């Protein structure tokens, strides 16, 4: 039995994963334990969980795999500073102490960080591998996918040098075919727009994507923005390769994403301040960069097809979380099928590093995959809590709860509450791996209620009112609601809501003010129908999440609708809840009506006042 521990750390979204003979056992992101969003520290808590849960002693671990090559990254830094010198001195002086003190001694840093798990000599003898960043992403996309052979497209901010790579996976081999190098980066381009539109880099990209549909595709302003981006910021070639005009970007040598003076001149629009008003121009700009991003992704996919002649495509890297682009990719039918790693960002690099180490460095075969399912087990790879632990947590707060012996009775009660417009915190089984809540740490509501989106945004999540919500639909009912050709178990595909579900679009709809458009009733499932009649779909399967499937089924029996609103169990700026304690606190601090943890059912009105109230709205930095 070959056991490998994969680690991603020290940049953003630290995580750890463990595999045994190529099989994914457990994986978790550090932020879920430390309660610090996108925590970059060494994933000590995630490793503790993994070793405890798998009952594996550190001595049994054959190798540790870190998700990038520190020396190669250092080479990129030095060459970049050398190229741009004397520009970039401030950035250079910020970067070098971090490197000279810590990152260049990465092997030692990892060993020291692992010292609590085994004797010094054991740690010293443990081999440490450093697969390249994009190889880690590629491995995370290819090896757990249902395909024995596939084209691999990885796009992110930056790893060592590569920012984009096309590779070809066949059995246990991955061959890199083409790369685009720093500073030319689609991920960093998108992040620069995130920054310019007033959102936080490396977490607000999702908001920018959600804002894009509010842009008016027919307006001259949007068309001009697209033209300006393509004329001045990015040169896109026929094969999807691109280069950025570094006159407009400051990230290579400075301490912010873009040269504001140049951007303001180009777009005739000031940078939006954080929490500032979002006017139509920012929405049009968000749409413009989304359109350009999709163009690049589609061209790169076409090139990947030509280079590999494969039927299938797998994706990873932060840009693969752009589910709108993924949806367009699927609709284009360049490939027969696509698969996306649910933890496509850097957290997933830990799993990819472990898999690359096993299949490439150790030359071990892939697992036989006869049922055509992927190897991610629904992405439910994190901690779970038994009844004893749940009760212990609840009693600590003096919580009033009811335990249902029969799960069917529980789903009957909960589905009834949801169908009456209540909001329910739903906590079951193992924590999800990756950024999406997939029905184990979710807040659920009824998609038919016109004010549900507003209620969830403003009273439960305390986040921007424009942000959309996603549906969880029974796998077998997918085609009742969406024009989606394949299942989307990880909520990584956006698809149009079916025409028969829609209400008629008003004539001057795109000219409406933001919130007038938002509150226009667009379909019979308005809470999950985004402004452009699209939805970010999660299909729920009996095979991977029977309890969640049963709940939606019970709801369907009452209402005739086989879908629910599903949003992650957290408030703005907070990582998704991990433990029953996190869940109870989140429940009590928001206007959620009911909480279910396993078979335990809690009504808000029965709960005692939460003691030791902290100023929790300030407990999490806004994202």
């Amino acid at each position: 039995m070959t056991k490998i521990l994969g680690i991603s750390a020290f940049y953003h979204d630290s995580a750890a994963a463990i595999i045994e003979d190529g099989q994914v056992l457990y994986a978790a992101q550090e932020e879920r334990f430390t309660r610090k969003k996108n925590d970059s520290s060494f994933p000590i808590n995630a490793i503790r969980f993994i070793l405890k849960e798998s009952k594996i002693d550190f001595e049994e671990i054959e190798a540790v795999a870190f998700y990038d090559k520190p020396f190669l990254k250092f080479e990129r830094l030095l060459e970049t500073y050398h190229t741009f010198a004397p520009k970039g001195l401030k950035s250079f002086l910020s970067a070098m102490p971090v490197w000279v003190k810590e990152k260049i001694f990465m092997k030692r840093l990892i060993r020291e960080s692992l010292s609590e798990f085994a004797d010094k000599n054991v740690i010293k003898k443990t081999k440490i591998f450093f697969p390249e960043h994009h190889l880690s992403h590629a491995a995370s996309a290819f090896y757990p996918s249902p395909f024995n052979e596939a084209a691999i497209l990885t796009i992110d901010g930056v790893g060592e040098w590569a920012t984009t790579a096309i590779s070809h996976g066949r059995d246990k081999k991955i061959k890199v075919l083409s790369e685009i190098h720093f500073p030319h980066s689609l991920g960093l381009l998108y992040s620069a727009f995130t920054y310019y539109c007033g959102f936080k880099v490396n977490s607000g990209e999702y908001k920018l994507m959600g804002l894009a549909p509010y842009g008016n595709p027919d307006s001259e302003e949007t068309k001009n923005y697209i033209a300006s981006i393509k004329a001045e910021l990015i040169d896109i070639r026929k094969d999807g390769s691109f280069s950025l005009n570094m006159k407009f970007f400051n990230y290579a040598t400075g301490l912010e994403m873009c040269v504001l003076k140049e951007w303001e001149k180009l777009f005739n629009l000031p940078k939006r301040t954080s929490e500032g008003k979002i006017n139509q121009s920012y929405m049009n700009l968000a749409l413009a960069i989304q359109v350009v991003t999709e163009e690049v992704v589609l061209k790169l996919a076409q090139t990947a097809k030509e280079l590999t002649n494969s039927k299938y495509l797998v994706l990873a890297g932060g840009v693969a979380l752009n589910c709108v682009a993924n949806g367009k990719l699927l609709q284009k039918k360049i490939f027969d099928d696509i698969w996306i790693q649910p933890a496509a960002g850097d957290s997933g690099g830990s799993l990819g590093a472990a898999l690359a180490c096993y299949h490439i460095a150790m030359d071990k075969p892939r697992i036989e995959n006869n049922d055509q399912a992927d190897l991610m087990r629904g992405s439910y790879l994190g901690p779970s809590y038994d009844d004893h632990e749940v009760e212990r947590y609840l009693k600590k707060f003096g919580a009033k709860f009811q335990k249902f012996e029969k799960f069917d009775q529980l789903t009957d009660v909960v589905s009834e509450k949801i169908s009456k417009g209540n909001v329910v915190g739903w906590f079951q089984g193992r924590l999800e791996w990756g950024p999406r809540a997939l029905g184990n740490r979710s807040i659920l509501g009824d998609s038919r209620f016109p004010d549900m989106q507003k209620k969830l945004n403003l009273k439960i999540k305390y986040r921007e009112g424009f942000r959309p919500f996603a549906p969880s639909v029974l796998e077998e009912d997918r085609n009742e609601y969406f024009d989606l050709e394949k299942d989307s178990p990880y909520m990584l595909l956006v698809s149009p809501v079916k025409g028969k579900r829609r209400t008629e679009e008003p004539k001057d709809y795109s000219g409406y003010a933001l919130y007038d458009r938002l509150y226009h009733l667009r379909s019979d499932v308005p809470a999950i129908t985004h402004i452009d009649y699209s939805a970010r779909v999660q299909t729920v399967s009996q095979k991977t999440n029977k309890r969640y499937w049963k709940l939606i089924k019970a709801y369907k029996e009452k209402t005739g609708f086989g879908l629910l609103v599903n949003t992650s169990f957290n408030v703005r700026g907070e990582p998704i809840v991990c433990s029953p304690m996190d869940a109870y606190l989140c429940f009590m601090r928001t206007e959620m009506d009911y909480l279910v943890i396993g078979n335990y059912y809690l009504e808000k009105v029965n709960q005692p006042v939460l003691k030791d109230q902290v100023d929790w709205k300030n407990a999490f930095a806004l994202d």
Partner: protein
Amino acid sequence: METLKDFWAFMNSRKKFWLLPALLLLFCLSALLVFSSGSAVAPFIYTIF
């Protein structure tokens, strides 16, 4: 020592020996920075380093 060995092997495989004097200079410069500032704090807006 292990880091130095690894770095030498890296330079050999990448054929980038110009990194060596740059690295030595950096160590001297950065040691000063590290000791004068107390701790090395990672940046910033997008963690590209």
